[in-house]
């Protein structure tokens, strides 16, 4: 459904953030985008949602297609209208607006009053923690609550694809687990596809079907999440080890430093 091919992105004309990134998100699929800081995960998401341009960034090569139609180069609000909802990094609530107003803002593009009303109730059902905070200014919510709110808000737009930028950042492990299981539930019940950029590989792969690992602006590895979870490529991409980049045997216990034979 969502296909990005050969993305090459640059900030301010000089800072190269993506060198050659291609990925795909199928209908009803949850795809994890992994990698350490600076690997290009956020930039990849921004290239899809159109936010890249607002940050002085440019897609110098490559294209992004939604259902075969090119969307790279469109402004964020247009892309949002096509059903792509980008949840920005860092709990981007509207602090002066109440929780409820935030959620209503999520439904900005919709006109069906009844539907919005129902979805509002559904949001509080998915995220029961938010219900008592309905009338509170969202700036006063805790980190975990804000993150819930931001995702619930995105869902109010009934998106086809949800782009999530590091949803687990700064959250306690218990909350992360809860959040990710809600995401899976949403995919199962609503059919929303998701592209989740995460540093927390273990958590992300636990909920995703498929994953890509970014390193230095390129895709270093990809595969079904079960495969990736075991694959030491992920570890080496994180720790910058493994210069030979060779696939290690499945029989190596996870955690074994790669290139064990080579090092004497």
């Amino acid at each position, binding site marked *: 459904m969502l296909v990005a091919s050969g993305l090459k992105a640059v900030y301010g004309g000089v800072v190269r953030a993506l060198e050659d990134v291609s990925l795909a998100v199928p209908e009803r699929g949850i795809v994890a985008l992994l990698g350490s800081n600076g690997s290009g995960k956020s930039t990849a998401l921004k290239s899809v*949602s159109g*936010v890249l341009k*607002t940050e002085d960034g440019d897609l110098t090569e490559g294209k992004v297609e939604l259902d075969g139609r090119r969307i790279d180069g469109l*402004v*964020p*609000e247009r892309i*949002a*209208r096509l059903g792509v*909802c*980008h*949840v*920005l990094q860092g709990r*981007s*609530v*509207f*602090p*002066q*607006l109440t929780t409820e*107003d*935030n959620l*209503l*803002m*999520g439904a*900005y*593009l919709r006109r069906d009053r009844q539907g919005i009303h129902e979805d509002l109730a559904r949001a509080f059902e998915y995220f029961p923690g938010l219900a008592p905070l309905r009338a509170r200014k969202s700036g006063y919510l805790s980190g975990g609550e804000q993150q819930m709110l931001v995702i619930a*808000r*995105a869902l109010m*737009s009934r998106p086809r694809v949800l782009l999530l930028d590091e949803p687990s950042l700064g959250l306690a492990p218990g909350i992360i687990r809860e959040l990710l299981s809600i995401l899976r539930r949403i995919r199962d019940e609503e059919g929303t596809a998701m592209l989740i950029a995460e540093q927390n590989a273990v958590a992300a792969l636990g909920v995703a079907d498929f994953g890509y690992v970014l390193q230095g602006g390129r895709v270093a590895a990809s595969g079904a999440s079960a495969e990736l979870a075991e694959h030491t490529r992920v570890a080496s991409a994180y720790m910058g080890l493994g210069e030979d980049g060779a696939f290690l045997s499945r029989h190596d216990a996870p955690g074994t430093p790669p290139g064990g034979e080579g090092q004497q």
Partner: protein
Amino acid sequence: MDTVTTLLQLVLSGVLVGSVYGLTAMGFVVAYRNARVFNIAYGQFAVLGAFLAWTFLGSPQSPRLPLAVAVVLTLLAVVAFGLAVERLLFRRMIGRPLFASFVLSLGLLAFLHGVIMIAWGPSTKVLAAAVPTGPLALGDVVVSREFVWSFAIALAATIGFALFFRFTRLGLAMRAAYDNEVAARCLGASASLNSQITWVLSAVIAAVGGILMATVSGVSIGLSELVMVVLAVVLIGGMDSLAGCVLGGLILAVGTNLTGYYLSPLLPGIAGIFSMLLILGVLVIRPTGLLGSRPIERV
């Protein structure tokens, strides 16, 4: 006139005038909040509105078009002006620092000043009354009818804005965009629409304020000093608070009246700089203004 009546008189006329100040200031706040522009040319916006109204409405001696027609034409002209300012000038400034757009507004100030003077000249014109005039007696207190009408219009407009921002979809989007513009865009709120509405609102409110003031003091370039009043109001009430405009306007007007009456004999001309002193006082005590929300970066 005994003391109580005098006091009542001063306060009441202050409230009436202050409501107009407050309304006018809202146009400035809208541009500051949603377009992030400190528009020092705002006074010229008000003057332009008043002159346009005069062009269509005429003066009592030589009236031109009927009231309804004149109102519509003025509104169209002001909306067109707001759109032009947005498209040609401030859209380019999105994302640039506040200083740059401030200097741009300085240039606009000079430009508009020159254009208005060339087009209409320096003499004061009297605006044909759009509202009934003459004194109105409420007990012992006398007020002018224009002021009462102005107050009513200002009140209606203020309530209209409150409703707009609170209850409409567009108003919600504008509030959200002020908090986090990119997040709002990711939810489908159009940045260009936001910008256009902001500037049209700003221009229209300025025009209304200018026209209301012109019914009292005539239409002249001197009306541009309204920007000083507006600055005082927003500094007192808070740069990003619409409610603060109301409060600031009332405090300023009533305060100026009282100062003028009670202190002027002792310090001639004190009423003139009362607003300056009030500004400085508020800046020192509460820099964000009485109802302002964003904290100023303190080093």
